[in-house]
């Protein structure tokens, strides 16, 4: 099976700073990694994904880094804005469970003005 954990339950950053949210997974056969953003009372929203054949992928203000050697995943948010305040989850798939994803417990990102 797979277990997924985030390093910090809460992260506070100043507006305009860069944010880094980390995630660790256990199964080296995992092939697919996703970051989700969940605002209070809403469903998770897809942010960015990466496959195991890559180690970096960039989107708009976000970058996902994958280190398969130590089974570590991170989400970097550039120039963090108040609208980025939310809970961020990493999800891992492809380790023999069909299309099922295993979710981490989430990191609450708080942006201070």
């Amino acid at each position: 099976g797979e277990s997924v954990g985030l390093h910090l339950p809460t992260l506070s950053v100043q507006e305009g700073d860069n944010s880094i949210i980390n995630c660790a997974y256990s199964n080296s056969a995992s092939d697919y990694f996703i970051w989700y953003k969940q605002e209070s009372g809403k469903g998770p929203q897809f942010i960015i994904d990466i496959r195991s054949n890559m180690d970096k992928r960039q989107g708009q203000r976000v970058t996902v880094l994958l280190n398969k050697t130590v089974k570590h995943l991170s989400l970097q948010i550039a120039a963090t804005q108040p609208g980025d305040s939310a809970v961020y989850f990493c999800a891992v798939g492809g380790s023999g469970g069909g299309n099922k994803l295993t979710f981490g417990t989430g990191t609450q990102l708080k942006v201070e003005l």
Partner: protein
Amino acid sequence: SQTIHQWPATLVQPVGSPLSLECTVEGTSNPNLYWYRQAAGRGLQLLFYSVGIGQISSEVPQNLSASRPQDRQFILSSKKLLLSDSGFYLCAGDLGGVRYEQYFGPGTRLTVT
């Protein structure tokens, strides 16, 4: 793009009453569909998933059941609710095949009293 609809948004039910939550999918055919439960401040627990009409896999033993009567309809049910069934219920779908990213509905907040 795929859109997941869920209703109702909130629900308060007494212990021992039945439950029916509905999820419908728009914009894709033959999706894999998922029901998750999220306790306050916690990660997502997969309850059921379905790869097609009438095909349901249960991930955890519990007081709930699921059905998929149509390709784009997924229903979560209970005959008699327990206090421990309270939580935030999320329906999600993916595009099947080798596409792992799941898209979530807005969720149903269930409170059992």
